């Protein structure tokens, strides 16, 4: 439950998607949870190079995330470490993006894992995800029944 996977099918070549993921002008057009602006985007796309993105959400708050590129295989794979500045969530997590060519363009598989710091990292090593997933599913069902 402490990793997140999302898949998107995109009508564009993998190289176009890869550039959108890694160029500052690309990042400025999509990064963030709402339509608030990206204020700063820097990328140094080589293994060990860093990225930094600052954005403002529509509630007026500014957020900054940064990390280092761990794997770069243009145009099929990108892995990077991830952390929030200002201690929004402590610790470093891992973002992995795989781009696969399909008839309509690209299938993008996005995974954000090792969320929540040391506790999570330890737990991954112990391999308890399945057990917790089961427990979490029960709670999600309960949560969905809660009046909102």
């Amino acid at each position, binding site marked *: 439950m402490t990793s*997140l996977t*999302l898949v998107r099918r*995109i*009508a564009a070549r993998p190289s176009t998607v890869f550039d959108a*993921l890694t160029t500052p002008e690309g990042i400025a057009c999509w990064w963030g949870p709402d339509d608030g602006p990206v204020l700063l985007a820097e990328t140094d796309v080589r293994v060990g190079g860093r990225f930094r993105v600052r954005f403002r959400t529509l509630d007026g708050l500014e957020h900054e995330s940064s990390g280092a590129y761990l794997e770069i295989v243009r145009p099929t794979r990108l892995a990077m470490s991830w952390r929030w500045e200002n201690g929004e*969530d402590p610790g470093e997590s891992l973002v992995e993006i795989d781009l696969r060519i399909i008839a309509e363009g690209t299938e993008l598989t996005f995974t954000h894992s090792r969320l929540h710091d040391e506790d999570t990292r330890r737990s991954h090593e112990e391999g308890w995800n399945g057990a917790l997933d089961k427990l979490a599913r*029960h709670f999600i069902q309960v949560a969905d029944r809660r009046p909102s």
Partner: protein
Amino acid sequence: MVNYDLRLNRTFAALVDPTRRAILARLEREDGKSVSELAKPFAIKLPAVMKHLDVLDDAGLITRSKVGRTVTVHLSPQPMFAALDWLRRYERFWSASLDRLTAYAERKEAETKKAGR
């Protein structure tokens, strides 16, 4: 925010141990077990089980009530909701971002094709 992080840390730290997860899973099926009933399936001694229950109690994941000599244990899922809400924030962040990334890449692709003609 700091308190929120501390609570989340406590939740995840409590959930990291397999014995404690087994206790929670058991309570999920049959809530309101006594401490000795809960301890039965485990190879560890009762005081060790009590320690695990203390950790779960500190994390707010269970409550204990005493009737006579019997202590019964109840599941308290509230911290789980907080942990799930926290995870859902990431999901919202990336889901919205990837939707816009998709739109941007498709626009770029269309521009490239047009320019190529």
